[in-house]
């Protein structure tokens, strides 16, 4: 990891570690712990999407669907079949991995808009299946009575335990991803992003890497989905529809498409917007997302966090000199 990343990671750990302690002591915002748990779960999805979109340059509008596959695997196996939650989570990962591979191999031959359309189509299929397979999924009225998360005999029950579990996972995934993008594999991603033909001529197996990063992002989404299922203990197909896939793209774009920290910050920001600050707008909150997307795409395509970080870095250099 680069020195800069180490410093940021230290600040990140401090903030994440102290956040619940501070927030819990202030009554008006004590429920922010709950919002942050959701933000952490969604961050796992957006980190994966950041690797896929920002680094390897492949778009996916199916992340919510992959999250849904993981979530429903966990939900169905624990409710209908009484499986232990940790085993159900792993089965979810296997199922999602296989499905993502099957979808990825043909669709990643497509580029740009066509890839977006293919993944969008897949996402809609998953959404329809979740709605229609009523016996298994509970259909539109949802799947209730999912057990909490247990690891062996140890049950994760208090919000604090959930918070630290989720953000511990985010920190681990973050470290893994930071290392990954600064390695030969990260360079292969960037090369594919910049010029597939040249990457291939330099010996990079382009289609293999595209499928692998697609599967990796799907696995992260599936893992997040399982956490979501056990945390909320209720699932509804609406949480895994197209709108959510678009939201994940937006989360990555707000922070900075090729910036892993930006993906997490963007996710936290948008989660607070949708769960807290824009709640009063009800259905109209979508308008705000559209506006944000428009402003980012037109004026700050490199993303908010990237812009602010570059400004700070420049200022730091000036002051230091």
């Amino acid at each position: 990891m680069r020195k800069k990343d180490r410093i940021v990671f230290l600040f990140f750990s401090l903030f994440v570690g102290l956040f619940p302690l501070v927030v819990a002591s202030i009554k008006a915002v004590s429920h922010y712990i709950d919002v942050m748990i959701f933000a952490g779960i969604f961050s796992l999805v957006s980190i994966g999407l950041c690797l896929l979109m920002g680094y390897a340059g492949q778009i996916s509008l199916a992340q919510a669907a992959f999250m849904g596959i993981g979530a429903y695997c966990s939900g169905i196996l624990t409710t209908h079949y009484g499986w232990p939650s940790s085993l159900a989570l792993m089965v979810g990962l296997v199922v999602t991995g296989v499905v993502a591979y099957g979808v990825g191999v043909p669709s990643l031959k497509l580029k740009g808009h066509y890839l977006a359309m293919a993944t969008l189509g897949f996402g809609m299929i998953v959404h329809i299946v979740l709605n229609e397979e009523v016996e298994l999924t509970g259909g539109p009225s949802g799947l209730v009575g999912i057990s909490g998360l247990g690891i062996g005999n140890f049950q994760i029950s208090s919000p604090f335990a959930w918070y630290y579990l989720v953000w511990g996972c985010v920190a681990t995934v973050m470290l893994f991803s930071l290392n990954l993008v600064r390695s030969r594999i990260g360079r292969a991603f960037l090369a594919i992003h910049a010029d597939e033909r040249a990457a291939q001529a330099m010996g990079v197996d382009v289609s293999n890497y595209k499928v692998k990063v697609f599967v990796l992002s799907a696995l992260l989404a599936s893992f997040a989905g399982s956490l979501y299922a056990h945390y909320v203990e209720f699932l509804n197909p609406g949480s895994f529809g197209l709108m959510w896939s678009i939201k994940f793209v937006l989360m990555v774009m707000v922070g900075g498409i090729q910036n892993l920290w930006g993906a997490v910050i963007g996710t936290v920001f948008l989660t607070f917007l949708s769960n807290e600050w824009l709640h009063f707008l009800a259905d109209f909150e979508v308008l705000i997302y559209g506006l944000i997307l428009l402003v980012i795409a037109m004026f700050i395509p490199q993303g908010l966090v990237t812009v602010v970080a570059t400004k700070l870095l420049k200022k730091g250099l000036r002051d230091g000199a």
Partner: protein
Amino acid sequence: MARKLLRLESVSRKFGGLDALRNVTYAVPEGVIQAIIGPNGAGKTTLFNCVSGVFPPTSGSIYFDGVRIDGLPSHKIAALGVSRTFQNVALFKNMSVLENVMLGRHRQSRAGFLACGFRLPSMKREEQEIIRRAREYLDFVGLVDEENKPAGSLPLGKQKILEIARALATEPRLLLLDEPAGGLNTAETEQLGDLIRRIKKTLGVTVLLVEHDMNLVMECSDLVVVLHFGTVLASGTPSEVKNNEKVIEVYLGSAAN
């Protein structure tokens, strides 16, 4: 004559109704600088693309060191020891100069997702080795002082040199250079000629060169083949080709007189 490193046997490539290559049969001996010349549209770049696997020939076969390579995807051909540059510079502009050359080391390194994600000791050692070797190639082409610059910020001449360094980092036995002097000034072209000769002499790499700059071609190459409307018009040493009547008629004639 030295053994043949690359052999084309009646290679043809059609684009719709256009025959870009027609029954090209030709062999490149190991250890030479072989130039391919010919007017625009003669099929030079098409030939490169067939050899490097950007697309397969419509018919015919291509052998690299005795192994049939036509129809293989280009990363597999690269793995056998064929590397190339592109007519319109194809650098990774989202990466630094050094990282571009490091990418060239891709197939010489092994670390997988887990080794990279957890920075295992084996991966760290390998990464040090990648950096060391990449710097050697930057040093070889004379770009070592620019290693931290974004690749896209270099002037065109240096971008073309960097592309050669990246191709060399893959440790090819055959290097295809597609118009390396295009857009370079006289001084830069001279330096390029030196570099191409050093690639053959120091690294022992066979070079296949598509080029319009006749001075460069005549000075640096051991052998020249002339393509005309997708067929081989003539081949031989530079002076043989220069004095070939057919060549003078269709190609050099208009340029030389």
